């Protein structure tokens, strides 16, 4: 197998059949452990997604469970970030994108329904980006930005939120003495945790993370991963990563995408020890992608 890695691509190009097998929600490993019997919070139902004329996602169909960490892995351009951005409709910002078929339901509500206010949706589904993007304001103002948008300006409430969010993001002890200094003075890892704190300040239910550690050094990465581990007590987390070990380290469920299709979704342990699809194994063993 390792002698001919080039043959992998053609012989394992996903077919409708192979996708069908793994998309069966009654995956034995998923049901085995009671840990995974959590209720479904996001239901992705046969979603096709288009950038203009080109189809980026093909019939994606799986549930995301509440208060678990779900990781999307796959080679670049496989559609994992696209799918993530569908979940809080950040794709709306890109001209010419549309959901061609299927629906995405969060807590049973189709988020692409015309009656959905995308602003309310994004308050409930927070997002952390690949490149940490603190605003060039003070740490304090960064955290309360979302609250101020909602018209909340009482000092006591803001102070309380700042402390709660920073503690939640394991950053409080590091910055408590300089809350009013510029957020840009923080290190890269601190900035990313500040972005997480900013996201949890508006009390979302779901936090989407788009390669949150790709710009961080290993120590900062470990801190963010530990933070993700803590956050899953209270939040449902969906993380996109192109670092497979990261998916292994911090997720409960791993979904593997390739060429816009979901190839396999299962518990992270199962994916990493005994993936049922050849492509998954090739990818996580580093033989392609």
């Amino acid at each position: 197998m390792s002698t001919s890695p080039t043959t992998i691509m053609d012989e394992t190009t996903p077919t409708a059949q192979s996708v069908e097998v793994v998309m069966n929600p009654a995956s034995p490993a998923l049901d085995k452990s009671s840990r995974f019997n959590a209720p479904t919070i996001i239901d992705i139902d046969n979603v096709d997604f288009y950038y203009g004329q080109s189809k980026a996602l093909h019939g994606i169909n799986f549930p995301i469970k509440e208060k678990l960490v779900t990781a999307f892995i796959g080679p670049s351009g496989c559609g994992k970030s696209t799918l993530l951005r569908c979940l809080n409709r950040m794709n709306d910002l890109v001209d010419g994108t549309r959901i061609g078929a299927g629906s995405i339901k969060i807590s049973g509500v189709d988020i692409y329904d015309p009656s959905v206010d995308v602003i309310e949706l994004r308050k409930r589904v927070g997002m952390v980006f690949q490149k940490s993007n603190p605003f060039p304001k003070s740490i304090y103002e960064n955290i309360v930005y979302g609250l101020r948008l909602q018209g909340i300006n009482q000092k006591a409430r803001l102070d309380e939120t700042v402390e709660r969010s920073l503690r939640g993001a394991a950053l409080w002890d590091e910055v408590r003495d300089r809350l009013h200094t510029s957020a840009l003075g923080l290190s890269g890892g601190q900035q990313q945790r500040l972005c997480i704190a900013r996201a949890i300040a508006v009390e979302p239910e779901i936090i989407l993370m788009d390669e949150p550690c790709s710009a961080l050094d290993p120590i900062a990465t470990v801190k963010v991963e530990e933070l993700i581990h803590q956050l899953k007590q209270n939040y449902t987390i969906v993380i996109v990563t192109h670092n497979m070990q990261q998916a292994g380290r911090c997720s409960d469920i791993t979904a593997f995408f390739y060429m816009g299709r979901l190839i396999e979704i299962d518990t992270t342990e199962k994916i990493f020890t005994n993936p049922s699809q050849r492509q998954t194994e090739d990818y996580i063993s580093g033989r392609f992608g």
Partner: protein
Amino acid sequence: MPTPVHSSSYSNGPAAEQIGKIRETLLLMASLTDRNLSLALRSLVERDDKLSDAVEAEDSQLDELEVSLDELVINHMATHAPVATDCRFMLVASKISSNLERIGDQAVSIARRARELNKEPLLKPLIDIPRMAQIAAGMLRDSISALIDRKAEMAQEIIRRDKEVDAINKQLARELTSFMLEDPSTITRALNLTLVARSLERIADHCKNIAEEVYYLYQARDIRHERKA
């Protein structure tokens, strides 16, 4: 106070949790093995069949623990790609658990022999076997505490005690052979005692292996098969 046994370089988070779980399972296995071994020896010395039954019953628990520990180890290796001490700990934990499980099996075998022996009066007062048992049990306890307390030097000392057990075993075998030659009616009992001694000798061997693994864990040097002195 240092954290007992190897503790992960991760302060918290899933990796530390998983390593902690492996550590707990390993220590649970060790204490179960220790208990089973002493129960087996008591069943022999105190001539109590109930204790033998207990040993046999509890061995299955040990087997299950071994399986689940291996699962934990492979999951951790697959998902976290441990390196350095973490990586050695994965290998060592798996090997120690396998040795512990075999010690448990030997304890079961001792318990079975004890049940046989308890049917007839003693061939001779038990002197050498308790001595061997004491040394072997001491080796097991010490190797586990070397693991817990991170004492690589202690491991080296344990390895030396294995020779003592071997010597006693040889001497006892000779003694029992002469019993059998003199009086064929003692053959069953003498054979059973020989088997018990052999089990104890095997246990000491496993303890030696554990000690070697402990040494490898903390010193990153493999001292197996280094018998020059």
